[in-house]
């Protein structure tokens, strides 16, 4: 008996020592001073660690960034985002388009194409390919086609001249031509058509574009391998191979970056990025993005239909506390719906700030009797959503407004959003094309109730009128004026709580050069212009 007790004692000691040992090793390995082997990636290869696999690579089908990251460098489009002084912008210039003109009424757009570009099988990119692409986009009829709501027809004028006809003016049109969905597809895809699917099955897993790269291998849930398009006429890119490794766990991605098995690691949590900054081999870069986080107040429901009550909520939100606490300072408070960096943003508009006295006063004026309970709808899709809710819970609580946290599966949450079955809900938004239309028209037009965009179910005929006019004319200065008037009304009526726009952060090995952040192309790398020292 005695011996066994002794043995137990020895074992307990061993256990404790062992656990401490593993904990210490763990800590040591995490420390920035951990010896990292020299980079294992050859200099003509770029390896990017991403969090998710792509779903489908057909530009006419996919609406996810994970897929665009692969397809964008494999295709060309008529337009591309400009680089101004080495920085990205929301303005566009010709990519395949050499020049273009638009009719007075804004309905007919004629493009002259650059010559000499070829698809990766050597077929020249011409007007027929452009027409084919847009006809196919319409026939497939999935998400990407939604960016061309007024497109009526596309005609081949000559080999290198193509004409688009719209049935109503749509000023963002020229910007939408830089979308992933507008990627020009090799008409030979029809050789792979099965049962009238427009080659969708084939293009879901292959690329047939004229960009500098082409997809050579997709090992599902493992990696993508891109190699050079042999017919690319431009300067030869430094990277002959670009790999995207799918590593879902952020700690594992970080480890691989530190060990040099990755050149770039995406979507790391902010706290890990802060730690990574201490590593001399790693460069954490930060850019203001157009992706915003905001709270929808369901204006159809009592007491949220009351403007004073909504204003009280906007005053009872701790914007700076949320930015500091949840985003560790890696965000900027929004000023109205249009974020900084998008034209149409007005830096002198009114901005709410935490003012509980003012909030109490507005609450009293609203005539809403407290205590009131409001549900806060969210999902675990974004880790910031829960702490945002908790912050609202604490500040609203001081007004006698109880916030009930309602966490649901994302799919279920979306369904409730669409049906307007919520009080408060949180969401993210990023633009598909570089036009304030993406914020102003989608969020406030009473025709877009629900998931389509107007998730606050906000209705104001004056706002409807202003934003619809702004969406019909092409004069940018005039449009800006109309959007500004609409923003003033909206901010005053507070249908959303405008929280913050995020910074986009990404970690590189120090020797990776030439990356240009394009606010419209978050998660998409200009690999053809990048290099490693």
């Amino acid at each position, binding site marked *: 008996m005695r011996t*066994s007790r002794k*043995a137990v004692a020895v074992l307990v000691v061993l256990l404790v020592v062992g656990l401490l040992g*593993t904990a210490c090793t763990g800590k040591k390995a995490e420390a920035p001073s*951990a010896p990292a082997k020299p980079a294992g990636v050859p200099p003509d290869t770029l390896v990017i660690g991403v969090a998710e696999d792509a779903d*489908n690579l057909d530009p006419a089908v996919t609406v996810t960034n994970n897929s665009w990251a692969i397809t964008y460098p494999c295709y060309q489009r008529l337009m591309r985002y400009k680089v101004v002084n080495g920085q990205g912008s929301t303005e566009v210039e010709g990519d395949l388009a050499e020049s273009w003109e638009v009719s007075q009424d804004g309905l007919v757009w004629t493009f002259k194409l650059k010559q000499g570009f070829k698809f990766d099988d050597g077929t020249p990119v011409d007007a027929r390919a452009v027409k084919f692409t847009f006809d196919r986009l319409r026939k497939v009829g999935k998400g990407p086609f939604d960016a061309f709501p007024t497109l009526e027809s596309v005609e081949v004028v000559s080999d290198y001249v193509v004409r688009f006809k719209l049935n109503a003016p749509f000023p963002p049109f020229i910007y939408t031509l830089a979308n992933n969905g507008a990627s020009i597809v090799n008409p030979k895809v029809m050789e792979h058509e099965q049962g009238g699917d427009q080659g969708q099955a084939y293009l879901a897993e292959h690329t047939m574009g004229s960009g500098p790269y082409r997809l050579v291998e997709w090992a*599902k*849930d493992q990696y993508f391998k891109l190699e050079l398009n042999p017919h690319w006429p431009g300067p030869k890119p430094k990277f002959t191979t670009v790999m995207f490794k799918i590593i879902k*766990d952020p700690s*594992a991605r970080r480890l691989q970056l530190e060990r040099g098995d990755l050149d770039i690691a995406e979507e790391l949590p902010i706290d890990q990025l802060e730690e990574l900054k201490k590593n001399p081999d790693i460069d954490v870069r930060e850019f203001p993005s157009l992706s915003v986080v905001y709270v929808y107040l369901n204006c159809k429901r009592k007491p949220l239909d009351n403007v004073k009550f909504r204003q009280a909520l906007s005053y009872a939100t701790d914007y700076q506390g949320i930015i500091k606490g949840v985003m560790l300072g890696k965000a900027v408070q929004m000023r109205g719906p249009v974020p900084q960096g998008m034209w149409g943003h007005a830096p002198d508009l009114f901005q709410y700030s935490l003012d509980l006295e003012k909030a109490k006063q507005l609450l009293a004026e609203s005539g809403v009797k407290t205590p009131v309970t409001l549900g806060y709808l969210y999902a675990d899709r974004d880790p910031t959503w829960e702490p945002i809710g908790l912050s609202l819970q604490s500040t609203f609580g001081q007004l006698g407004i109880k916030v009930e946290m309602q966490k649901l599966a994302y799919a279920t949450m979306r369904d409730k959003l669409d049906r307007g079955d919520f009080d408060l809900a949180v969401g993210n938004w990023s633009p598909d094309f570089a036009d304030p239309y993406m914020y102003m028209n989608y969020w406030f037009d009473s025709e877009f109730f629900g998931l389509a965009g107007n998730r606050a179910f906000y209705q104001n005929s004056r706002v409807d009128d202003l934003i619809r006019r702004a969406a019909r004319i092409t004069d940018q200065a005039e449009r800006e004026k109309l959007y500004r008037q609409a923003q003033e009304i909206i901010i005053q009526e507070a249908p959303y709580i405008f929280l913050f726009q995020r910074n986009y952060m990404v970690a590189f090995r120090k020797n990776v050069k030439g990356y240009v952040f394009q606010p419209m192309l978050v998660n998409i790398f200009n690999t053809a212009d990048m290099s490693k020292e």
Partner: protein
Amino acid sequence: MAFGQLIARRMLLLLLVLFGVTVITFSVSHLVPGDPARMLVGQRASQEMVEQMRRQLGLDRPVWEQYLRYMRDLVRGNLGISIRTQRPVSEDLVIFFPATLELALTAMFLAVVVGIPLGIVSATRKDSLADHVSRLVSVAGVSTPLFWLGLVVLLVFYGRLGWLPGSGRLDPFIPAPPRVTGFLLLDSLLAGRPDAFWNALRHLILPALCLSYVHLAVVTRQVRASMLEVLSQDYIRTALANGIPGRSVIYRHALKNALIPTVTVVGLAIGDLLGGAILTETIFAWPGMGSYVVDSINFLDFPAIMGFTVFIAVGYVLINLVVDLAYMWLDPRIRAVG
């Protein structure tokens, strides 16, 4: 009951199980609010586009009709098209399942090969130091959170020591062997590619070790408990009294009887592992079923969820059958009575 009879009966049972499983999964996945058509056309698509997509997917039909259609296709071996990946579900399963199976079988192999001897030692030297150590190992295994273990192992063996690769099944810079079975180890051997075999094996070690540790604990404890029970039986004492050497008593008489409950545990564990060791697969970027299913659920991808469920249900029934056959082989009484 003869083997043949048992198998026939189980096949009939399989049909019933499939019916039950499909009805339940189908109704649950269709009752959950959420619209895959909307997911597919994008959140900003117009209502008409959503409606058109619903028609295309057959989601506008009554649920019972959708179910009948599904069953009709299932009988023909067609699991439908995944809404998320737009590929036939059966194709997706063929891609992801072998990775999971390879990992699960390796982990189970390790758990059994180490767990059974550990359990025997523990039982035959009850309350000795060896027993305490093996119990400690198994208690730690049962109570260690897998994600923590995975991260620590990754930090140490990949991050710090750099002995083993940190993610995936094969180095992307090594050309994969032609796919025959989907098991990389086997395929590399078939293709005569020792480099790929070695690389795949190195990739397999860390996730398999982590995964096996939890099950190792269960196996050890199970073997220990049943060994102790068997060892206290009269016939063991008789055998020992008759002068049969202890070693022979333990391995020829006691172990065979003690293994019966262990077989059940192992069988269930394999079933469990096939469902996808989600955490392990996530940490080690192992391209298996686990993450496929989680992504499908998040997307409310009915065909993929259904396909997976049917597949796993069949898997469970078959494993149970194998377990029962193993009982028969181990225990003549079961063979006689059925």
